[in-house]
Every structure is written in C-alpha cells, then in structure tokens.
C-alpha cells in the first residue's frame, strides 16, 4: 500500500488520516457505526439523560406558556435575561460548523473533511436551540408570526428599522442554508448507506433520502457545483448572521451595547465558541467510536489554533471596550467599566477574563494542543467563558444604565436554568440521534483524502 499523502514541506505535521486505509475500509468503518455495530449501553445512557433534559425543557416551556415570562428572573430594567444570553451563545456555537464546511471548503482545507459533517450537524442543532429562545422569550409568543412580513387583513407590517426583524431574516436564512448544505453533503453518503443496509426499512428510508443517487459522473458533477454554490452562499452568512445578532445590541443606546466593535467581535467570539464545541464533541466521539485515525491530532491542533486566534480577537475586543470606557470620557461608558470590575457581577467579569483570555493562552503550548483531555477541558472553559461574555453584555449592561434611580438586579430563577440546561439536553439528544443514524464523518470526502484518490497522470 502506498504511503498516505504527506505534506512535503511540513513533514512533521500529523496526518489528516492515519495510514493504512483503503476506500473500502474507510467506508466500512464509518458506515458500520450506523449499520452494523450494536448500539452501546453508553449511547442509551447518554441519549436517555439528554432526552430527560429535553423533557425538562419542554416542561419549563409549557409552564412558561401558561404563566408568562414573569416566571423568569427578568424585570425592568433587565428586560432580557437568560433567553437572549442563550440565544446568542447557541447561535455563536453554530458558526463553527458553517465556517468549517463552507469557508474551509472554499479555501481548500481538506483536513476539514473529517469533521465537517458533524460540525454542520452541530450547527443545525445549535441553531434549533438558539431559535427556540427568541420565540419563547416574547411576552405573547403566539403572535411571533407578526415578525414576518406577510399580506394580512390587519393592515400590519413589521417595523424594518428594528434589528429584531433583521434577526428573523438572518437566523431563518441561516437555518435554511445550513440545513440544505448539510443535507446536500449527506446525499452521496445516504446512497452508500442505502446500498449497504440490509434492513428493508433502512433501505427504504435511506433510499428516499438519497434522492436517487447513483454516483454517476453527472451526479458528481452536479453535486460538486451545488455544494460549491451553497458554500458560496453560506460563507457570507458566517459573517452576517452574528453581525446582525450583534446589531441587536449595537443599534441600541444602552452603554455596553452601543459600540461599533460588536460585529467583528461577535463573529470572532462565535467561531471561538463554535470550535470549542466542535472539540467538545469530536474528542469523546473519536474516543468512543475509535475514530482516532480519522479525527487525528492534526484536527485537534488546527481547531486549537483557530481558537487561539479568535480568542485573541475577542481579547482585543475586551481591551478596546475597556480602553474606550476610559478614552471616550463618557460618564456612562466609564461607569460601565467600573461596574464590570467592581459591581455586583464583578465575579462574572473576572471569570470571563479568566475563561476567555487567560486560561486559553495555554494553547500556545504544543503539548496541550495535542492532548485530547486538555483540549476538552479548555474547550469547556471557553464555552463557559463565552456564555459569561453574553451574560455580561446582556445583563450587566442593562442592570445599571443611565438613571441611577432605575438600577436593578437580575437573579435567574429555576425556570431560567431549566430552560437553559434543557436546551443543552435537546442539543445532545439530537447529536446522539445523529451519530446513531447518519454517518457522522463524510465517507466520500474521507475517501478523497486517501492516497488511492490521487489522480495518477
């Protein structure tokens, strides 16, 4: 067997796929998770817990619909609490998937092939979790459709100056494109599963989903074109969606929100948290399913480097915010800085600095970059940090704004926590289902990484 492709210039770099695989063995290995290997008890346990958390979320949301948003800790002046924090956090997490699948595709970063599938799935589920919150945080959620422009007899039309309306378009577009991109990418693999499954039902379902894929050259040609086009469409979304989300804040006049640095800072933060989530998923998955050969040290390293880079952008954002607090000479911005450092939520701010800036600097150490356990822990820290960042932005900015008489405090209630943890359950439950019934690594794209795939002149 030939040696797998090795970059000649950087010979010390870990391979994208470990040597010794053929087209057949790659296909076997990935499809067997879905088709032949017995479902482990671990899977049932994990899915069971996630499913219970999902049920808890549904209970919390059900109670919310019965009683109203007053069951949460929000109040005047803190009109947005956990719901918006979680929304921004989940949307941000989703970004890594799109970045990996679209931008890295366009940049011909072939190492992405082994992680793009589940990163995209992660995007989809994260967007689903995110999308829940703007809906349920409304005082009258049954009127949510009023945010869409549609012809009606009420002489009603959305107010397009509001960033919330932009949000509706940004997020719904994002969800649609992400789904299409993910599904189109799945088609050749679905056909593989169709062909390999022995169960009649599986054959039928995979067959329907495979859209009649036969792997002809024409199919491949069409597929490549469509995939590339969708990648082109998704690429601006990576930047635009979180930019629009950041407008929710940047357009407002609240000190701590009203700042022009928000769009790039939000996008960087989104990718930061997104890669952290990719690692948090990839590390256990490769461990439990024995996919260390496909998701190699190289992937972990690359993701860690992306996190390091975006983390520094985020740190720059914090720095600029603090600098402007002092430099602007604006009494409200100056107080905002003071309040972050000394106010009642100061521990959150210090935790944020630690989680998002100081602790991730450990990624400079190569040894840690290649240690799955260290990366897993660091990713968890970053995810907590990014959640805290949104908490600081939303809650700490609102709780003490312009008039001192109207300052207040925000204390999340158990319903806030149940909803938040519940969405994590929903996300995990969806991920568990995904790894069980769909190929979590793109089979055909993995095959292109093999030496066999190299076109011989």
């Amino acid at each position, binding site marked *: 067997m030939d040696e797998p492709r090795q970059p000649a210039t950087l010979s010390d770099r870990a391979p994208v796929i470990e040597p010794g695989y053929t087209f057949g063995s790659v296909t076997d290995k990935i499809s067997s998770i879905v088709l032949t290997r017995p479902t482990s008890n671990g899977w049932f346990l994990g899915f069971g817990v996630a499913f219970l958390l999902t049920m808890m979320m549904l209970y919390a949301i059900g109670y919310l619909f019965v*009683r*109203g*948003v*007053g*069951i949460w*800790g*929000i*109040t*005047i*002046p*803190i*009109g*947005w609490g956990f719901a918006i924090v979680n929304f921004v956090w989940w949307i941000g997490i989703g970004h890594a998937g799109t970045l990996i699948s679209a931008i890295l595709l366009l940049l011909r970063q072939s190492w992405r092939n082994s992680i793009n599938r589940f990163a995209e799935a992660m995007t989809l589920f994260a967007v689903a979790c995110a999308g829940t919150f703007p809906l349920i*945080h*409304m*005082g*009258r*959620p049954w*009127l*949510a459709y*009023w*945010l869409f422009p549609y012809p009606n007899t009420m002489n*009603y*039309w*959305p*107010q397009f*100056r*509001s*960033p*919330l*309306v932009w949000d*509706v378009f940004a997020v719904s577009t994002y969800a649609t494109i992400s789904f299409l991109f993910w599904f189109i990418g799945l088609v050749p693999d679905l056909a593989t599963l169709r062909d390999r499954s022995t169960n009649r039902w599986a054959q039928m379902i995979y067959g329907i989903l495979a859209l009649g894929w036969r792997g002809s050259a024409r199919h491949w040609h069409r597929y490549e074109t469509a995939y590339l086009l969708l990648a082109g469409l998704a690429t601006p979304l990576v930047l635009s969606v979180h930019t629009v989300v950041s407008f*929710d804040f940047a*357009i*407002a*006049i*609240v000190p701590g929100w009203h700042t022009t640095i928000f769009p790039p800072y939000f996008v960087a933060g989104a990718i930061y948290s997104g890669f952290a989530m990719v690692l948090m998923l990839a590390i256990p998955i490769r461990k439990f399913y024995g996919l260390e050969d496909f998701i190699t040290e190289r992937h972990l390293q690359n993701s860690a480097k992306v996190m390091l880079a975006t983390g520094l952008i985020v740190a720059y954002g914090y720095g600029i915010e603090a600098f402007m607090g002092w430099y602007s000479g604006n*009494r409200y911005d*100056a*107080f905002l800085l*003071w309040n972050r450092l*000394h106010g009642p939520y100061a521990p959150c701010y210090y935790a944020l600095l630690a989680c998002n800036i100081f602790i991730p600097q450990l990624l400079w150490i190569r040894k840690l970059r290649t240690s799955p356990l260290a990366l897993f822990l660091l990713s968890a820290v970053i995810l907590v940090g990014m959640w805290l960042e949104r908490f600081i932005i939303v809650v700490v900015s*609102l709780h003490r*704004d*312009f*008039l*001192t*008489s*109207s*300052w*207040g*405090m925000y*204390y999340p209630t158990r319903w806030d926590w149940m909803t938040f943890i519940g969405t994590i359950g929903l996300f995990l439950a969806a991920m568990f289902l995904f790894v069980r019934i769909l190929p979590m690594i793109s089979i055909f794209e993995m095959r292109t990484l093999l030496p066999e795939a190299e076109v011989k002149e």
Partner: protein
Amino acid sequence: MDARHSRAKTLMEEENKKPHREEVCPGKKDKLDLKAVSAQIAATKGPEYWRSLEELAGTPEFQEMLHREFPKGASEWLDAVSRRGFLKLMGASLAMAGMTACTKQPMEPIVPYVRQPEEVIPGRPLFFASAFTLSGYATPIMVESHLYRPTKIEGNDQHPASLGGTDVFTQASLLEMYDPDRSQTITYLGDVRTWGGFLDAIRGPLNAQKAVQGAGIRILTRTVSSPALADQLRSVLKLYPQAKWHVYEPVNRENVLEGAKLAFGQPVETLYKLENADVIVSLDADFLCAGFPGNTRYIRDFAKRRNPDAGNMSRLYVVESTPSSTGVKADHRLPLRAIDVEVFARDLQRHWEAKGDVIALTGPGSDAAWAYKHEYMEMVSSVAKDLKAHSGSSIIIVGDHQPPVVHALAHAINQALGNVGKTVFYTDPVDANPINQTESIKDLVAEMRAGKVDMLFIIGGNPAYDAPVDLGFADALKTTNIPMRVHLGLYQDETAELCQWHLNEAHYLESWGDIRAYDGTVSIVQPLIAPLYSGKSAYELTAFLAGQAEASGHEVVQGYWKKQHPGADFDAFWRKSLHDGWIAGTTFTPKSINPKTANFPPSTASDAKSIEINFRRDPSVYDGCFSNNGWLQELPKPMSKMTWDNPVFIGPAMAARMGLKTEDLVTLELNGKKVTAPIWIQAGHPDNSITVFLGYGRRRAGRAGTGAGFDMYPLRSSATPWFTTGVNIAKAGGTYKLATTQGYQTMDTPVGARPQVRTASVDEYRKEPEFAKDEEPPKELTLYKPYPYEKEAYVWGMAIDLDACVGCNNCIVACQAENNIPVVGKEQVVIGRHMHWLRVDTYYQGDRDNPKAYFQPVPCQQCENAPCEVVCPVGATVHSTEGLNDMVYNRCVGTRYCSNNCPYKVRRFNFLLFQDWETPQYKMMRNPDVTVRSRGVMEKCTYCVQRITQHRIDSEREDRKIQDSELQTACQQSCPANAIVFGNINDPNSQVSKLKGVPRNYGLLADLNTRPRTTYLAEIRNPNSELQS
C-alpha cells in the same frame, strides 16, 4: 302519483335506509328534508320544474317539512326519553328549581331609556362634588362618574382647601369603595343578619336604657367634624343624658389642641398663609405631606413662593426628628431628636428675646460630643436673625406630635413676631368635640372594666387594633362581657371580631354626609352610587339611636341643614351647595386672641444617652385604616421608596455603630413590650433615635393588608403616643426582604455624579441662569427623517418644575386610577416589576447624616428621537403626528426591546397577568376610556391620550382649538403644587411653552439626543448666606 313523485320517493327511501336518529323514535318515518327536496327539484327537467313546487306543496311530506322547525340535516333533540331518563331529568329539575327559591330575584327591567336622564351620555362622564374625610378634615373633591359608577377622584378646583389638588388618600379612596374585601353584610356573632334584625335586637336594650337615662350607653367615634353627625350624637346624648360619647383616633391632634389651651385657654385651629411668608420655620412639622390638615392648600401656597422666576422666594428651615418630604424641600435642615425640639424652640425664643445679644444656648441634652452642636448653634442664631428680619411675614409651624408646650411656644413666638393676622390665623377647631382623645378612651376602658357599660357602639375606627397598648382595649372588649357591642365599620376587622354585632358601613362615596375642611368650610358628601353591599352610614345608625326611626342619611343631613338654613330658598341653597361642593358662609372667621403668657414650664427632660423612639403615621397606610388598599400599599413612600412594609428607620451613624445593615431584623423593647422588625437605614435620620410607622401588621385587613409589615402599636402607650426615650434595640438575627422601588438613591456613581436633578442656589441662578442647560447634539444628527410639526395644530409637551414638587406621590396614585394600572404585590416589587407609569425618584446628596435631597417625577419623556420606537419589531410603539409616543397594546408581542432601549426606564411590562380580570367590583371601577392590559404587553405613560382625544373631539365639534387651560393630564390635575404643566408646545402662549422658555429648563439625558418632550425646571434653593458655609 306521477313518475316524478315516485322518483322522489325512491330518493327518500334511499335516504331513509341510512341510519337516522329518527329511527330511534318510532312512527316518524318518511320525512322530507331540504336535501331531498332540492335533489328532487334538480331531478325534474324542463317546464315541469316550475310547477313542481306547487305540486310538492300538496304532498304530506312537504307539509310536514313546513311545520318542522329545523331542516332534517340539523341536529335535533328527538330522542324518546326513557322512563329512567325522564325520572332523572325531573328529579334534577326539581332540585334545581328548589335552589332558585332561596332568594327572591329582584325585578330587573331591561328596557332602554324611555326618557333619557338629563345630561347622561353613555361614554361621557359626569362630575359630582363631594368630600373625602381623613381624621375629621375634609378634602373637597369632584368625582368622575361613568354611568353612575365613580371612576376617578379629582380635587375641587373651586374650593379653597383644594384648588384642584388632592392627596394620596383621597385618590386611593376610590379603590377602597370597590374593595371586594369590604364587609358586605351585617353579622351577629358571625351569622348574617339584616338591618331590620339589628334594629329589632337593640330596640329592647335601648328601651331598657331609657329607664336609667342611658347610663350604660357608650358611643366611641373617630374624630367627628361633621356638623350633622355631631348634632345627631348630641341629640342621642340629650335622649340619654347619662350616655357618653367618647372619641379616639390613633393619629389625633390633641397635642395641638392642648397646646392652644395652654397658650390661649381655649382649643383653636391654627391656619397658615404660606404664600405670604418669607421665612417658614418648621419644628418637626411635615406640613407638605398628606395627613397634615390643609396640606393640599399648603403645598400650593408653598410652591407658589418657591418659583425664582416669579419673584421673591420664601426660605424654609426645617428641624425634624424623622426625615420627611418637608425636610427635603428645606433650604436648611437640622436633624434633631423629637425630644430636643422643645429645647430648640426655647433657645429660639430666648435668642430672639435677647435682641441679638449672645446668650448661653443650652443645646439638646448634655452630650458635649454631639456631632451637630455647631450646626445647632448656627441654626438657632441664623433662624432667629432671619425671623426678626421678617417679622410679620414669617411662620413657625409645629408638628402635631410635638408636646403641647412646643405648640404654645410657637404661638408665643408667632405672636411676638407679629405674624398673627398676617401669616398665622386662629379659628374655632374643626373637631366638633375637641376633647383629649387619649383621656377619652382611657375613661371608656376604665368604665368597661368597671362594668358600667351595657351598650357600646363603636362607630368607625378599629380601637382593638390601634388603641394605646397599656389600656388593653381589645382585652377589655373581650373579657368584660358588655351585653351589646356594636361595631360599624368598612371591614370585618380586629374590632369587629370582638363585637357581637358588626354593621357593614357604607363608604363615603355611597352615602350622604357633611364635613368641614381645615378652614371650617362645610362640604356636603353626596353619594355617587347606591351602597354596593347595602351598607349603613354613621348618620343612619345615630339617627336610630336618637330616636328617629330609620331616617335615611339624606334626610338626616338635609334635615340638619334645613334647620341651619330655614327659609323658602332652601332648595336653591341646597342645590348650590351640592353643585359647588361647599356651603357658602361656613368658613370659620379668624379669631383675634393673644397668648396669655410666653413662659411655659418645660415638659420633658432630654436624656441624650437613651435611644428615642418616634411613632409616626405611615405616609401610605396612615394609621392602618388604608391597610387593604393595594394602591397605597404599593405606593413608594416618599423618603425610602418602600412598599408593602414599615421597617424601622435608623440613622446611618447609629446603624454603623450598632453594626446593622438595612433588612437586618432587630427587636425593639419598650416598657416590657417587644416587637421584632427589620431596619431601614434612612439618610438624614437623627442619631440616637429611631422612627417606627404605625398601620402595619394587621391581622384582619383583607387580602392586601393582612400580614403586611409589622405592628408597632404594641409599643405605643397612652402616656407617650408620639415619642419617648428608653427603647432597647437588639439584633434579632436574620434578615427580612424589603420591597423598595428605587434601590439606588443617589446621583453619585464611583466615576462621578450624574446630573439627573440639576440644582443651584438662587444667587447662582441669577448669576448664571443657563446653568442647567446641557450641550445638546444638533437636531439633524439622526438617521431618520424628522417629523414635520409646523402644520400640526397640537404638539404636546410637558414641563415639570422640580422646585415646586414636594414628592407627595399624588401624581402616582392619580395616574394609577386614571390608567387602570394594576397592583403587582410585594414579591413582584422585590423583583422590580412595579407597574407605575409615573414614578417619583428621590435622590440624596452629600453627608449621609444630613443630606440634601431632591424629588424628580419621571413619566414617559415622549422623546422626539425615541429610542423605543426604532427597535420595536412590530411597530407597537409609534410616533403620533402630535409628537406622542403612542403605545399600541394590541400590536405588542412583548419583546421588551423598547424597555431595554429606554434610557429613562419608564416602560412597564406585564410579566405575568398582573391585572385582575375577574373581580366584578374592579370591572366597575376601571376607566372605560383606557384599555385594560393583559399579560405579555408593554405599557407606559401616554400623556393621558384618552383625555387628549376627548378634548379634541369636543373642540372639533365646537369648531375651535383645544384651550390651554381645559386639557390636563391626570398627574397634572391632581398635583397640589402645580409642578406638572402639560400643553401644546406649538402654541407659544401656552403655559408649557412659557415654562420651556425659562432658562432653568433642561431635558433629562438630553445629551443622548433623545430630545425629550418632558423637560424639567431645575431646582433652585434659597439658602441663608450666613449658613451656607
């Protein structure tokens, strides 16, 4: 039968083959339904069609169809009722029929007006003059009535005691009338009785009393200033010469009357003309607060003299024991323990008499380390000097709770200054029975215990809860076995519980009466609605006692005034009095009397070491009689912004010394009685002294009042009802959550002060009139097209004069009543979800032991560049052509983005279903012109857009413009200080335009380019240059 018919028959047969309901019912086959007929008609062809109907009409089937009520397809109840079913139905019907027989259903003719009542236009309110009573003093009012339901109370702008203003209790008394927890029936030992039953029950005992000249009859009332009721009570006493009339009210003015007796030998009422005063010295008198007789008028007069743009400002010195809104408005304030105020008064008198020479000031107590010694000395000498310089145009006012001798001293000083007849006037007392109330109830309890009382009538009041603790009134009531104890009251309260008979009292909005205002003017109280629960008034009860069997309140009151005004023109006199809201010629004429002496023996010796405790009426629930009033319970108290509770006020220095924090529980011990309550560190409270507020800790108040706060009456004895020393404070351990609406009460932040309230001394203002102006961003600095207003007839705006505002909170309650604002309860206030559209911010500045303080009412600022409007995704808050930020409740989906983006935080959100949609009484109370908001909807001040619309309609019909004076917002109308001015800023001659042109006018947060339409006139103080250092 021809072919057509047979065809039809086949169709029908087919139809009948399907299982039909009728088949259950035997003998009802072969019916014709619409479907069959139309099928039949459709089946016929050609010209025959036109005959077919006639032919069909002849058939028995068609005839049957005509007689059937419903076509065959419609669902019908055609089941044959089985025997068992029939018996079941009949049984149930009989049972149900029996239930309806319990009460005789009243006749309810529901015909439309055959003859429209004069002046009643559905949808348009009527206004009736009446009067609200608090502790015997009337607040003249105009009540708005929508189809005979009172919905809003306004001040009577023609009456000198109101001039259009009201106070919080008056505003909130509307809710009291509709309170579903009010006592709704007459009860005897808890069982429901009728008025007739009650009369039957007391007739015998009353007759028995006739034999002993009523020696066993005792009547206990609250302060009575009603001429007719006093007359009634006197005629009862005439009928039963041995009977006695006792008076008790926990917040009474006996010190004032005793002080007058001390000075003049007779009880007199003291009236002040604040508009003529250049220097006002308050010795612990909170004369700008609801509950002080005449406060509404005093606020107006005081505010008039506080306008630096309209001439000479008056100067206010306040020496006070409990921080109050009067102290906030002071140019110079000295915190002093209540017990030391007498020393201050004596020092003042002595200093004044020394004709400028330095004399030995004693200072309060003997504690040389007293922190305010220097300030005290300076205050005495400057006040004395200032008073001397303004002889004849100064006033010394003494608080009701100060001992009689301080009142007497003040009378002497006022006399010596030549103020009497210029700024200070004496009249007969308003109280019809000006006796010492503490002595009165003491006598009553003694007689109860001695077994001399056979019949006790408690007319109003709740002595079982609020009588002095050492008398043990409740205990006496419980244990002395008085054969007949009758309680007339609005609630089944603590006293009702201990009486055999409880009579549900008619509210003042439901009954006839008459009452004197602080100046003696009598107002007729006229009912706005028939008693909701057939309550009886005190007039009706006393009428029966006086032997006028079953006289109505109307007969009693009118009868009394007929005696006072005999003559043929009585009808005109009566109608005019009702219409105007007062009876002409009843105002007391000032007396010219002189104090007998200027030397009075000292009353109390100050003990600087021991801690003083002050008992004060609560600014919201008064003495406890408004405990169950949600509007008042949730009304943030002027100084602490506290709702639903009465923590112990303690000064910052003392709290620091004792290691106490706000919300810590402490145990107060006085004379062996203990009360555990949380503390509130109140800036400006004198050291070594605490203040507790009465009226809380009720056991039987109702759903709002029961259990709220802490009962302080157990510490209050008859000997020292207002203050005493020797209280012991100990940390009880633990904390208690308090619900304040403003957690942060200063404009100072760690990175500099925020100019929310702008203030200057009058000299600084004269030097630099534009001091309050901010650098505002240029008007064109916005992305959006500006609204063109040039062509509009009206562009609304508001100006609030911070100088005039005395923080009385009246605007908040007025707004709540006008705009159907819900009460949310303590738990929600703790979270921060109170719903007031208008709030009054209180800011403290400087030394926490004696800070400067400011009030700032904040309604929606109706910004021109409104941050809320651009962020609403559904266009639920939009700019009107007249410049308002309209709120479209129906459209709101509740994202709360507008509130986040509102820099003034004036938007309020219905986080839960805060509004009571169920209670029928509240449905009657609500303003029909204002939407009742539901859950999930944002709401806020709209400048009372319903009033604007009403006036626009009226003016358009009359083809004219809205006059500047005719349109008032609810807050503006109720404001006793005239601090709030609303109007058309497109009209350069409107009052609001003129105010906005004043140099001290500024926009709050105008640097944000919001361009608020509500602007503020900066607060100008008039300090004494001598004391300024």
